[in-house]
């Protein structure tokens, strides 16, 4: 098969499915829609695997716009390939926006991630949405939006230019909004979807500013041109030299502002502090969609964005990378601390997602172009993105199984489930071990590389913070694990009509697939030779000192969790009673939401909106009222003329004639 002929279908097929399922939702039952959607996405997934496989292991070529033939691999280095690129929007002669299909190691890797997770979620949702013997009425809608999301996410990672990425970026935002608000009859879900949309949209405003500043100076949107030759185009456009930072704006170098604004867009989607507030609330959506969107794919879009523009960041704005790394480290620790105190199992996972994405950001932040050691962070970040997508999707899907049985999200309604749900228990355990960083599970490799990258590039403080976060991570994950599956068995289970049990194959198969991917990750080829900043081969170093420390820290975390939560005891309560204020402060997510609400109410509503409202009421409405007043009074005063009294008309007429004659004569 020709790559160029099948590539468009990767985007077209999910889009067609969205339109088809959306338009026929009243014709088919939810079951039929689900089957159609799953089969169609299965085809898309096969295409994605085929393209990624051809890119990494095969050999093919495309003709680029200059007429040269580009192969997927030159020697040991993977090339960036534009499979197709067509004109989309022609604003002016110079400003043309293309839509295309861009392959390089990170987008090929993202193809695999999206295809795998999305396909598994399609299959899993079939079982999950089947509740109490009948299908959910909105199931066609659910599958349609799932297709829309897959389309948008694939378009985002395959974007050839930053504007296409922005369009698809907004599309993922919309489909995330629709999926969070899937249960639109629940007020919590409605407010959560609005919150998610508004917060990410607010961050996207910065993204757009960044895009405009960057591309106005660089005169192009194309990643190919922006990144080419060590971001030479950007360096020249912003007049950056070794001595100066180039064009300045308000005392800051413009390139710093532009790239930082672009990062803020990514921070919104990837839930970096202080834009993280939407992600925990987004858990109001159906659990499979949380697994897909809010754990594995959409939330890593910010990481992907920074990775995509990595040459620009690394050469033109290394100070922004530093900022990213500090923001990331803070977010990682902050989210991990909050996760310790949460009782809603999906919220715990949400905060752990924030924390793990922050790991990826940190890894990108400490990374620079230069030699293998400094580039390690990039590879580690991409590796963590991959492994995290797999094990976090699995954890979320396990949560879905548990919620399905227990019909509650709260930890206190769970306990002792291991007897009833053996498969879920094992998969959840694997996921927890992986996220804690225990060998040989996938998380161990990626997290170890991130810590090594922090340590070896001289970010010692960050390294310590990240190691502490790793300890916290293993603690709260195992707190969750023990609380759900051990602790004390809930007596209600014995009397329940449907005892908790492992789910049917549609829901178990995805768990097993992800578990296999997590356990046997070390057998995978690819990450040593491919997904690197220079797209070449790279030997991943193993620093046993750092690995040893991280394993020790993780085991300590697990040990503490074991002591506190394996069997029911009073210790956790005693500890919490010692500092109730701190506990409730952390439980309330450190009041960050309240700060946002406060800012929104007092500043945005109180100052900006009020003054705009005043202007609207008094100036705009006032002007309109003034016009109306003038019209009214003029007509009141002139309506006497139209009396209907013919004699008066004749009088005026005669006088007019006399005047005209008088004027004509003289």
């Amino acid at each position: 098969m020709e790559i160029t002929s099948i590539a468009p279908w990767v985007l077209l097929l999910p889009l067609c499915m969205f339109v088809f399922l959306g338009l026929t939702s009243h014709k088919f039952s939810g079951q039929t829609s689900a089957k159609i959607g799953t089969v169609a996405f299965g085809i898309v997934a096969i295409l994605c695997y085929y393209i990624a496989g051809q890119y990494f292991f095969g050999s093919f070529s495309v003709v680029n716009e200059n007429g040269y033939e580009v192969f997927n691999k030159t020697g040991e280095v993977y090339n960036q390939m534009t499979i197709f690129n067509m004109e989309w929007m022609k604003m002016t002669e110079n400003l043309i926006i293309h839509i295309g299909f861009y392959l390089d190691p990170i987008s090929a890797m993202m193809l695999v991630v999206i295809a795998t997770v999305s396909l598994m979620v399609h299959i899993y949702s079939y079982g999950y949405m089947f509740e109490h013997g009948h299908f959910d009425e909105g199931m066609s809608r659910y599958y349609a939006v799932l297709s829309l999301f897959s389309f948008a996410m694939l378009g985002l990672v395959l974007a050839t230019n930053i504007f296409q990425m922005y369009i698809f970026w907004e599309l993922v935002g919309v489909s995330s909004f629709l999926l969070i608000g899937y249960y639109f009859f629940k007020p919590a879900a409605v407010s959560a979807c609005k919150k998610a949309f508004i917060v990410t949209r607010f961050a996207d405003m910065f993204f757009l500013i960044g895009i405009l500043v960057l591309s106005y100076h660089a005169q192009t949107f194309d990643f190919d041109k922006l990144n080419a030759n060590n971001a030479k185009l950007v360096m020249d456009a912003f007049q950056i030299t070794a001595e100066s930072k180039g064009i300045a704006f308000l005392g800051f170098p413009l390139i710093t502002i532009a790239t930082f604004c672009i990062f803020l867009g990514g921070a919104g989607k990837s839930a970096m502090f202080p834009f993280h507030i939407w992600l925990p609330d987004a858990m109001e959506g159906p659990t499979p969609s949380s697994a897909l969107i809010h754990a594995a794919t959409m939330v890593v879009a910010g990481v992907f964005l920074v990775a995509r523009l990595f040459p620009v960041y690394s050469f033109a704005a290394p100070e922004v990378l530093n900022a990213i790394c500090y923001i990331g480290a803070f977010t990682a620790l902050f989210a991990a601390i909050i996760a310790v105190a949460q009782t809603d199992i999906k919220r715990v996972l949400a905060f752990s997602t924030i924390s793990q994405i922050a790991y990826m950001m940190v890894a990108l932040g400490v990374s620079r172009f230069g030699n293998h050691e400094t580039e390690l962070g990039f590879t580690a970040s991409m590796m963590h993105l991959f492994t995290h997508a797999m094990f976090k999707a699995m954890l979320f899907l396990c949560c879905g199984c548990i919620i399905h049985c227990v019909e509650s999200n709260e930890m206190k309604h769970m306990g002792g489930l291991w007897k009833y749900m053996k498969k879920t228990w094992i998969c959840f355990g694997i996921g927890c071990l992986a996220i804690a960083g225990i060998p040989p599970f996938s998380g161990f490799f990626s997290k170890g590389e991130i810590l090594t990258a922090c340590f070896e590039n001289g970010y010692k403080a960050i390294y310590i913070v990240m190691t502490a976060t790793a300890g916290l991570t293993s603690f709260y994950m195992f707190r969750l694990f023990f609380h759900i599956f051990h602790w004390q068995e809930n007596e209600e289970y014995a009397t329940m009509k449907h005892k908790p049990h492992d789910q049917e194959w549609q829901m178990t198969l995805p768990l097993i697939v992800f578990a296999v991917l997590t356990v046997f990750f070390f057998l995978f080829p690819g990450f040593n030779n491919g997904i690197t900043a220079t797209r070449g081969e790279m030997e991943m170093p193993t620093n046993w000192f750092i690995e040893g420390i991280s394993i020790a820290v993780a085991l300590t975390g697990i040990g503490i969790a074991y002591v506190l939560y394996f069997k029911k005891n009073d210790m956790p309560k005693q500890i919490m009673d010692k500092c109730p204020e701190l506990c409730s402060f952390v439980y309330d997510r450190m009041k960050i939401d309240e700060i946002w609400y406060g800012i929104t109410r007092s500043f945005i509503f109180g100052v900006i909106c009020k003054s705009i409202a005043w202007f609207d009421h008094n100036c705009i409405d006032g002007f309109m009222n003034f016009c109306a007043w003038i019209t009214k009074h003029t007509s009141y005063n002139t309506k006497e003329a139209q009396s209907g009294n013919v004699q008066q008309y004749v009088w005026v007429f005669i006088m007019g004639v006399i005047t005209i004659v008088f004027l004509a004569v003289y």
Partner: protein
Amino acid sequence: MIPVEFYLVVSTLLFFIGVFGFIARKNLVGVLMSIELILNAVNINFVAFNRYLFPGQLEGYIYSLFVIVVAAAETAVAIAIIMNIYRRKGNETVNSIKELKN
């Protein structure tokens, strides 16, 4: 021969008396009579100018005859309307007819 200006002065006076009557009279019959005065002023002009400018021709006389005929017809219609109004309203002032207003 009497100069033409005399005729013109008479007809102008007649015309403006008619206009005044038309504007000032409230009684519909009075208004109708004022219209007759205006038409008669025009007739005087027709006849006078015909006599002075084109003595051998008859167009002016014929026109004035036309005007008299039309005025008679118009008066007949108007009187009929006024009679009806008087029957309905009990008076025949201009102000009483305002059904079409508003």
